[in-house]
């Protein structure tokens, strides 16, 4: 089988789409009211050192995925054990995004359609994408990202007439704790979710590229997300905090003249595509991990099974949208902390030690 390779640019595109994924529709910042964007900025800044750690891990073990790295560092049994934890994280994340999508469509447009059908559909497309391989996903992302960005920018400009600058004021009206809370939640969702890409970026060509990709990818995505958050605050005002899907409602307010109104479909398009890519990446990493843990030759053989499991899991992961929203903003940051921060730091330190040993050995030899 041909070794799959993605270029830096494609990797950045995947990362951007992944990061804006479900955030685009759920919004960031939790309870920070009209200071949500400040939370976003702080979250992004918080995420940067961790991105550097992820990139560093990937650079030390160039061409190897996280599961290989774990097995090298922790031995066959310990490594597999931690690898299973990461497989779980990717699997769970994918299921959550599937559920987000299902809830969104179900609540917003199609209340009578069973959510399971919607989730199976997006799951099936994700399965197909993963079966075609990361290279195809990369190229598709490179094709789709400009479309998405253009749509977002156009909508941003169309929204200007509906924006009221005083909705941003007063700055820091919410308490510092709630801003920091929001920052923490936006760090965990979505910025540090890029830890999943440790299972993808082994396909990068050069040693330097992980830094470039991680930095540009998350930074540009962060800018987009913050821009969208500010837009939502400006258009929605205080009502924004009580909406599940602020972007959708904000865009539905836009109406230019008689004809150019009701352009929520743009949000649907961007969200549909971004969620799909996010799910595909999670499924890819899950499949890759399962293949590594079980010593399979090709991850493609488990994609369909895992994909369907993921959809099924999404079905019973939350009871309703209220728990989903609570989970995403309140519990998830703490739940994700070990995967996003604690374990990577641990792996990084191990990797540095191991690396020194290897180089020392080489020098002796």
């Amino acid at each position, binding site marked *: 089988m041909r070794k799959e390779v993605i270029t830096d640019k494609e990797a950045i595109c995947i990362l951007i789409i992944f990061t804006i994924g479900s955030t685009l529709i759920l919004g960031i910042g939790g309870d920070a009211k009209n200071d949500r964007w400040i939370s976003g900025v702080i979250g992004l800044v918080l995420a940067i050192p961790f991105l550097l750690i992820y990139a560093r891990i990937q650079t030390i073990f160039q061409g190897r995925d996280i599961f290989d790295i774990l097995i090298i560092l922790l031995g066959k049994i310990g490594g597999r054990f931690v690898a299973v934890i990461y497989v779980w994280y990717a699997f769970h994340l994918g299921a959550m995004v599937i559920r987000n999508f299902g809830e969104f469509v179900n609540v917003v447009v199609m209340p009578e359609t069973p959510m399971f059908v919607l989730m199976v559909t997006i799951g099936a497309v994700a399965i197909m994408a993963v079966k075609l391989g990361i290279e195809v996903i990369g190229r598709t992302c490179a094709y789709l990202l400009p479309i998405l960005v253009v749509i977002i920018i156009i909508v941003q400009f169309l929204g200007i007439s509906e924006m009221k600058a005083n909705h941003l004021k007063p700055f820091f*009206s919410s308490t510092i704790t709630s801003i920091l809370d929001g920052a923490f939640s936006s760090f965990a969702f979505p910025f540090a979710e890029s830890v999943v890409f440790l299972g993808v970026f082994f396909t990068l060509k050069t040693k330097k590229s992980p830094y470039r990709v991680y930095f540009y990818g998350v930074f540009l995505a962060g800018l987009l997300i913050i821009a969208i958050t500010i837009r939502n605050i400006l258009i*929605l005002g205080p009502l924004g905090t009580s909406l599940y899907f602020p972007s959708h*409602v904000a865009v539905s307010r836009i109406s230019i003249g008689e004809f150019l109104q009701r352009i929520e479909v743009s949000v649907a398009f961007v969200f549909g595509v971004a969620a799909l890519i996010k799910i595909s990446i999670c499924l890819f990493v899950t499949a890759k991990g399962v293949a590594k843990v079980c010593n399979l030759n090709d991850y493609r053989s488990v994609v369909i099974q895992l994909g369907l499991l993921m959809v099924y899991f999404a079905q019973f992961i939350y009871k309703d949208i209220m728990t989903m929203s609570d989970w995403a903003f309140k519990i998830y940051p703490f739940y994700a902390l070990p995967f996003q921060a604690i374990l990577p730091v641990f792996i990084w330190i191990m990797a540095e030690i191991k690396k020194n040993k290897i180089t020392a050995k080489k020098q002796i030899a």
Partner: protein
Amino acid sequence: MRNVKLILLAIIILINSFVTTACWNYREVENLAIVAGAAVDKGEKARYKLTVEIVKIAAGNDAITESKLMSAEGDTIFDCARNAISVSGKRLYWSHNKILIISKEIAEKGVIEMIDWFNRDSETRANVHLAISTENTAEDIFKGKEVIQSIKAFEMEEMLKNEDALSKAPRTEVWEFANNMAEEGIYGCAAAVKLQKMDGGEKTPAVGGTAIFRGDKLIGIVGEEETKDILFAQDNIKGGLLVETVKGKDKDREIPISFEIFKSKTKIEPVFNKNQVKMNVDIETTVTLAELGGCKDFIGKKGREELVKLSETILKERVEKTIKKIQQEYGTDVFGFGKRIYENHYKEWQKIKDNWDENFKNLQVNVKTKIIIKNSAMLSKPLEVRKN
């Protein structure tokens, strides 16, 4: 062989998925009862009576539309909307609703239920215009006669949209009202609608005046001219006319003058003085002299200065008068003075926010006006009347 099986399987799945399931949300357009406008009244048997204006479409290549009224009662708004099925047979389709009219009676008890439903439901749109009926019931408005369009709700939407060039009623959408209910230092207001007599004795819906709320409860309705003053104080004037009469050369003859407002900017600045708050309201309006009903020269330098001074005083007086009236009669801060303090002087706001309602009643408001006459339209001089 395997391929054949796969294809067969795919076809079976496809056919199944279409035959057994395909109409969850699939709706044909002609099966929709398109709601153009809705009116909420007190019900006879249940709590609410919802009257909707439905667009009835006649078959044909040209879209000929007719207005059709339909009412249903229920204990909540959504209950009414669903009960309407038993009248129409079709489910009401709310996405194209343009206006929500609430009767005075209901509004005085509180409108939160309607506001909530329009913001919460995914089919209704939150940018529906909100209006309060000054007639006995809200339903009456829809019973009036249309003038140009066949659908009254569409007509009223046009009226509200074109208020920008009239400034006699505020244009409030449901989401905006919801925001105003929640925000600190401001109370919402809505347009008032009434029936107006036309030639031939028929009545037609008309928009004019402001319904003043306190929280979600209606507390009063003010007239059209006062609405303009409120809009001046809110910095919401986008157009409209300023009409005044001044004394001319002949002592007994008054000269009517209309200015067309092109741009108006109101600066609202609070001034803090120990524990006392004062409001400075600076109105700067750019107008053109659109009508000059007399021979006196207000266009030359001297006359112009005189006119400007005069107009500024007139405007100042009327805005001040209206603010005073609102303060004394209703005591609700529809101008958003408190909101200005909240936004720009957050710390001071923390101190005064608890008794802002009381403060507002006695708030000292200084109105300053500035009128800039941009041009005098096509004529450079007043018309002359030859003296014999």
